[in-house]
């Protein structure tokens, strides 16, 4: 029995331990790399090292994957910190008049992309109304890929949180801003830079955590 070698990958006992505890090892099909080692030689680390390194590698890959699993389907906007793309769109109230980045230069504004076809937009409407009520920051609505009459009807029924609503019928502006779903809400600073983008419905919590924290104290209503 002593000539038998401890080759069982799953056997934690060091080579040279009580042979009777390893009677099955010679029928093993999972022989390790150090099969030639005699019981007297020092225990090889390979047979532990390889599984441990493999395990660590897999663990790291999976951990990174799990950490980012919440991001599936979320496209982080490359526009953050960059100048907001110039835009100019007709008003919902009066299609002969336009509004765009030129009119809003030098001031903070929130740009909310919505549509009457979008369910989450209905959900966020109360939050937007509350923000409009409590904050001096204008919320500019961009009615995306929508019917004007339906949009007016929606605002009449649910309330209108917007300082102005522009219409983007063909999605030209939405694509230019990297919008891929509604609602999406941007925060633009007086220098015309995109400061933040919320993907999905606005909530009072998101407003406090992501928007107010980025606004100057006097606009955020913080006593400093």
């Amino acid at each position, binding site marked *: *029995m002593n*000539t*038998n*070698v401890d*080759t069982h990958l799953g056997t934690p006992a060091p080579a040279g331990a009580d*042979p*009777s505890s390893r*009677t099955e090892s*010679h029928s093993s*099909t*999972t*022989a*390790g*790399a*150090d*099969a*030639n080692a005699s019981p007297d030689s020092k225990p090889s680390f*390979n047979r532990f090292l*390889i599984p441990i390194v*493999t395990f660590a590698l897999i663990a790291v890959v999976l951990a990174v994957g799990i950490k980012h699993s919440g991001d*599936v*389907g979320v*496209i*982080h*906007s*490359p*526009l953050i910190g*960059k100048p907001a*793309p110039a835009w100019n769109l007709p008003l919902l109230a009066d299609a002969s008049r336009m509004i765009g980045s030129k009119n809003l230069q030098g001031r903070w504004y929130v740009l909310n992309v919505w549509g009457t076809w979008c369910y989450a937009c209905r959900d966020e409407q109360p939050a937007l109304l509350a923000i409009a009520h409590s904050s001096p920051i204008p919320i500019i609505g961009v009615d995306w*890929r929508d019917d004007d009459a339906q949009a007016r009807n929606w605002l009449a029924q649910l309330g209108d949180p917007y300082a102005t609503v522009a219409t983007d019928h*063909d*999605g*030209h502006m*939405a*694509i*230019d*801003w*990297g919008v*891929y*779903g509604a609602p999406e809400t941007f925060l633009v600073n007086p220098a015309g830079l995109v400061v933040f983008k919320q993907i999905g419905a606005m909530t009072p919590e998101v407003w406090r955590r992501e928007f107010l924290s980025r606004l100057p104290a006097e606009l955020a209503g913080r006593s400093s």
Partner: protein
Amino acid sequence: MRGLRASSARTRALGLEARRWPARAWAAFTPLVVTLLLWSAAPALAVDPAQMPNPQLEARYVTLIHEFRCPVCQNETLADSNEDVAGEVRRQIRTMLLAGKSDDQIRDYLVSRYSEFILFKPEYSLRNAWLWLLPVVLLALGIIVALRIIRARAALVDQDDQIVDTGESATRG
């Protein structure tokens, strides 16, 4: 055995007989098969009939829409997708082509709006080099481990005769 029983229970639950189906049963599936086949043809029609003024632009357009991902679908190119957003991005590409923009300008534009996510084939960079290198590394590791196991096992077989003669009887007896 347990697996077999479970699967036959499942067939029963689906109302399907585990026995051979008569020819009539197959005939009943023909409309379904035809529907599925026609359905699979739908993506081919997703590409809107692009009206480009010349074949060169048309060819560039078709190439480009196959290079970008539909923003709201993980595994479809702009060309394959029926999503409204995909249509709008396609139209944006058409507009830029007609405005005389180069393919690189269009690519940079889309990446600056939608990040590298929009690229159906990610760009090779230091940051995502592991995407390309990991399979090679894993394959090499696998080969090394396999070789060592094979060698070790070969060595074991040589000694097995002696072990069975001496060790087995000693421990069992």
